[in-house]
């Protein structure tokens, strides 16, 4: 018997992994080479959803690309809007009124809750727990999306922020509703955690899988919860202190090992911190203007909104990592150059490193734990 086994010839198998059907909302492919069940090479292939967002933005006015930013990371339109608005405000120096700052922070943190809740649900899908955790997640997400809809007019494509403030004030009863959601959220998280955190299957599938070392994470420009799960204390809300984040008390949770389990758990912890920020913001929000007196664009119409010559890089801590906008103005109404620094695209750089030597089934989970959205990866 033993002699026969030694004589067996083996060869590497190359396969394409990933949702490739045109009806799925994200199309992504991993070109994987396998030795048995072990991954020996992995190359991500992307661009299926590419529509040259940057070119479209360069041919329109500054304000006209605001609704397009919704479609980058379509789970987090509020934070995309915020990043773009902050970059343009940095370029032009438009002031944002106090109340608008609070509204923005509240919307951004609610978005973080939405993103992380849904991500945890989908991560369980990737593990084979089909749709039960996802439905719990969607139940909670829908409550927040109702608030978004009441205020901005849309559940997901909010198009809510403007240069110098936001499009409209909170809808009537928003603050009471939001307070109720935030007060109940920790209870939902407890319920979620009871199902998941110490679940034996989840632990054995996630612990020590797809480890990302601290050094490699920094070296490869990984940002967001991925980076913090590897134990690097870097949160742009703290580092840059943009908007009014320095006013709020919250902690930055850190992981130890940088495996999939840490990446799952860091999101639960971040949601708890977001709830703290929301509590404080909803308590302290003052009355006042929701948009700067200079108007939505700081000019009479978008066509006459012409920032002075120059370039600017504005960045925020989006739920997936550092979302940045690099804008070059040549003094006309259209941006001369408009570049998006998408967190999930750059976080994919180290996908191969994390998957090498792992089993094929685990690559799906590792990919899920990066938290990518193809609208943002492909742009």
């Amino acid at each position, binding site marked *: 018997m033993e002699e026969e086994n030694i004589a067996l010839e083996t060869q590497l198998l190359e396969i394409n992994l990933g949702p490739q059907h045109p009806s799925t909302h994200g199309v992504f492919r991993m070109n994987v080479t396998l030795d048995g069940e072990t991954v020996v090479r992995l190359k991500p292939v*992307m*661009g299926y959803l*590419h529509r*040259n967002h*940057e*070119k479209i933005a*360069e041919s329109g006015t500054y304000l006209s690309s605001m609704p397009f930013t919704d479609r980058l990371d379509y789970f987090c339109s509020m934070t995309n809007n915020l990043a773009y608005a902050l970059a343009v405000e940095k370029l032009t120096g438009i002031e944002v009124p106090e109340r608008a700052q609070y509204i923005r922070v509240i919307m951004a943190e609610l978005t973080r809750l939405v993103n992380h809740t849904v991500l945890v649900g989908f991560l369980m899908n990737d593990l084979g727990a089909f749709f039960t955790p996802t439905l719990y997640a969607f139940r909670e997400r829908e409550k927040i999306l109702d608030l978004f809809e009441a205020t901005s007019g849309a559940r997901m494509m909010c198009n809510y922020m403007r240069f110098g403030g936001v499009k409209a004030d909170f809808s009537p009863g928003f603050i009471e509703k939001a307070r109720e959601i935030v007060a109940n959220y920790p209870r939902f998280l407890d319920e979620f955690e009871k199902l998941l955190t110490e679940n034996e299957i989840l632990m054995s599938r996630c612990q020590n899988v797809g480890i990302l070392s601290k050094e*490699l994470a*920094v*070296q*490869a*420009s*990984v940002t967001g919860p991925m980076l913090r799960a590897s134990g*690097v204390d*870097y949160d742009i809300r703290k*580092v840059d202190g943009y908007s009014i984040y320095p006013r709020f008390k919250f902690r930055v949770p850190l992981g130890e090992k940088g495996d999939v389990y840490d990446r799952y758990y860091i999101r639960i912890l971040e949601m708890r911190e977001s709830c703290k920020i929301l509590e404080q913001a909803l308590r302290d929000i003052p009355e006042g203007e929701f948009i700067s007196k200079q108007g939505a664009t700081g000019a009479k119409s978008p066509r006459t909104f012409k920032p002075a010559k*120059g*370039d600017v*890089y504005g*960045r925020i801590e989006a739920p997936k990592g*550092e979302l*940045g906008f*690099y804008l*070059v103005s040549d003094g006309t109404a259209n941006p*001369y*150059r408009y*570049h998006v*620094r998408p967190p999930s*695209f*750059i976080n*994919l*750089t*180290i996908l191969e490193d994390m998957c090498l030597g792992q089993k094929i089934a685990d690559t799906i989970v590792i990919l899920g734990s990066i938290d990518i959205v193809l609208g943002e990866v*492909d*742009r």
Partner: protein
Amino acid sequence: MEKIEEIQKNLEQHIPGVELIAERDAFLIDRKDLLTVARHLKENPSYAIDYVSCVTGVDYKEYLECVYHFYSMAKKLGPIILKVRVKKEDPKIPSLTPLFRGAEFQEREAYDMIGIVFEGHPDLRRILMWDGFAHFPLRKDYIPEDQDV
């Protein structure tokens, strides 16, 4: 973060013969100095630049410009901005990927969209457009094929 003049003084002191032009908050440097400057920023403990946040290209018609935004995660400082200008006929810039892994996909994207060739990049292929696509869509002289559609 130190003032830009101080960074310039420090760089000129440590790297003999380096040509730096401070332009607002950025340094304009020659491509032959890019790797030395980047390595110095990385290894000098007073900057400890370990994180290349954003790499992108801009087409200014007469020349192409590559813009790098560096931060330090260890010291929570930044940004230091470097700009490299190259002629369109000779759009070659040394790759930073061997120094900073985070530049890998971003340089591929700048190559794909603007057509800057990063020399020494381990895997310089198109990333968003398909292989075999002949143009660089974010150049200002690019004309889309299906304009009438």
